[in-house]
């Protein structure tokens, strides 16, 4: 891995009218990593991706790709390819023509184009679908055509805009692993935009959580989950109980699975007494809402390790909650 980042974003802002879509973002993407931009709708993640691709121009700041300033460089001259959320397959061309489009723009000889198109289609297991039209393909096949088309020019950087959003749930799980495998095999840098935190956590090496045009936190999925730096991040990634500490001057973010349920006062660093208010049985685990004596509410999740009983802690049951001193993350903002 080279020391120089493949993408360097410095002080980039973008306004649409009075709205700041991206607001003073600084971010370095390392060579060869799978990076995820994660956030809710309207957080600016797609605008940031489109500025890297060249479809939007930053109002302020600079974007460097592989050390080169991209200011004023149009999309067709950037060493970057993008996979669109809608896939944007050309409906008037067959699959092979779609995949070969980028190579034809380079003016390569026809036999080299058809050889490389064949390789690219084999790589995504669509070798015998070259003559089909996009409309004749399933959603998963369309996604793979879009991927092959974006990768055929061997870009330094592949941008993926919600790559799995258009797939159904079952297919999405398998495709996650396939994308990660492909990224590792090719040694390319992937930047992926997603609103699905589970997707970002399971695929990305590092991720940036975005909120209202700003980057709330950058880190590995583990860092962001276990050491959130703000209430927003703690709340956005997974589920968190946020408890006021130090007389309301700071907060503690406590994940539901870090809390244990006990019949009697446990021997943990912290212990509280409460009553089960609600139980959500999810099969592999159950989520409990527990009302404490002071009237506040805590979420606790336990893995259903044993097959019986179905409800080890029924509603209304008096319980003790216990957690370790380092189970939560102290938040000052």
């Amino acid at each position, binding site marked *: 891995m080279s020391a120089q980042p493949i993408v360097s974003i410095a002080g980039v802002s973008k306004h649409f009218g009075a709205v700041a879509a991206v607001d003073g973002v600084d971010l370095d993407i390392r060579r060869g990593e799978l990076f995820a931009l994660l956030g809710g709708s309207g957080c600016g993640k797609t605008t940031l991706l489109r500025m890297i*691709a*060249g*479809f939007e121009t930053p109002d302020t700041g600079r974007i460097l790709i592989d050390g080169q300033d991209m200011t004023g460089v*149009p*999309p*067709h001259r950037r060493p*970057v*390819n*993008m996979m*669109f*959320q*809608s896939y*944007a397959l*050309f*409906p*008037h061309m067959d699959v092979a023509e779609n995949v070969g*489009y*980028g190579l034809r*723009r*380079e003016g390569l000889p026809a036999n080299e184009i058809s050889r490389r198109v064949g390789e690219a289609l084999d790589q995504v297991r669509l070798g015998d679908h070259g003559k089909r039209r996009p409309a004749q393909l399933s959603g998963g096949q369309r996604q793979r055509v879009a991927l092959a*088309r*974006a990768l055929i*020019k061997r870009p330094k950087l592949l941008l993926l805009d919600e790559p799995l959003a258009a797939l159904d749930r079952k297919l999405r799980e398998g495709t996650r692993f396939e994308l990660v495998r492909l990224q590792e095999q090719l040694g390319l840098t992937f930047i992926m935009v997603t609103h699905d935190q589970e997707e970002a956590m399971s695929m990305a090496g590092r991720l940036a959580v975005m909120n209202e045009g700003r980057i709330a936190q950058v880190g590995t999925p583990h860092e962001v989950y276990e050491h959130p730096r703000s209430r927003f991040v703690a709340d956005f990634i997974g589920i968190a109980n946020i408890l006021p500490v130090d007389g309301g001057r700071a907060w503690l973010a406590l994940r539901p699975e870090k809390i244990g349920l006990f019949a009697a006062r446990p021997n943990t660093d912290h212990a509280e007494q409460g009553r089960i208010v609600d139980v959500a049985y999810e099969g592999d685990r159950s989520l409990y809402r527990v009302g404490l004596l002071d009237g506040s509410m805590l979420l606790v999740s336990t893995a259903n390790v044993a097959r019986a009983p179905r409800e080890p802690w029924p509603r209304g049951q008096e319980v003790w909650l216990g957690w370790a001193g380092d189970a939560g993350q102290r938040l000052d903002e």
Partner: protein
Amino acid sequence: MPGRARFAFTALAFGYAFLYLPIALVIVYSFNESRLVTVWAGFSTKWWSALFANEAMLSAAWLSLRIALVSATVAAVIGLAAGYVLARVPRFFGRTLFGSLVIAPMVMPEVVMGISMLLLFVGSDQLVGWPVRGFLTITIAHITFSVAFVAVVVQARLSDFDRSLEEAAMDLGATPWTTFRTITLPLIAPAVGSGWLLAFTLSLDDLILTQFVAGAQSETLPMRVYSSVRLGVDPQINALATIIVIVAACALIFSGWLTRRKA
């Protein structure tokens, strides 16, 4: 057949009869033996032979066809450009005015357009000796009003065009012009095609505007038909109408085929 279905069928039959029976009669009477268009006197093709020997009618038809081909093609190119700008450029100086001016000829009375164009051509002819009224002036006049129709059709098509297709092309290394040539144009070709057909038919049967700007020697098919009807109709007109109906039907089928092939 249940009562309601029978009523609906009858209503439909009457509707079609009202629209198409006159046309069917025109076609049938083109094979009439009699000179009188209202009296059937037996089958004959003599009016068809007379039509194909009618020099004035044939040269008028040829002139109309040439004008329609040229004006529709030029209007398609200009209308494509105008429609593209209206659909794609959100802000530029005078955009609202431009948008209104492009579609103004659709609602402008042809008499007004005719008189203003006649004054323009006469004035220009007096000043610089050009253009001589005839093929050129009629063609320019037809382009002027058919551009609006092409522009409207193209703009409508582009407004629901998926922009990410063009972005994908540029992302894959296509310049804006290559993107337009390989992605945008092929996908809006059916709209440009139907705009062309619209311009073609409008030009082919225009009478009012044409009469203002035509020269003494240039007589288009509608002008010829109109003047021959005033002298008294004979079934040659029926034969001519039959040809026009067939051409129009073919154009309609072709345009439908273009649209369906896209989908």
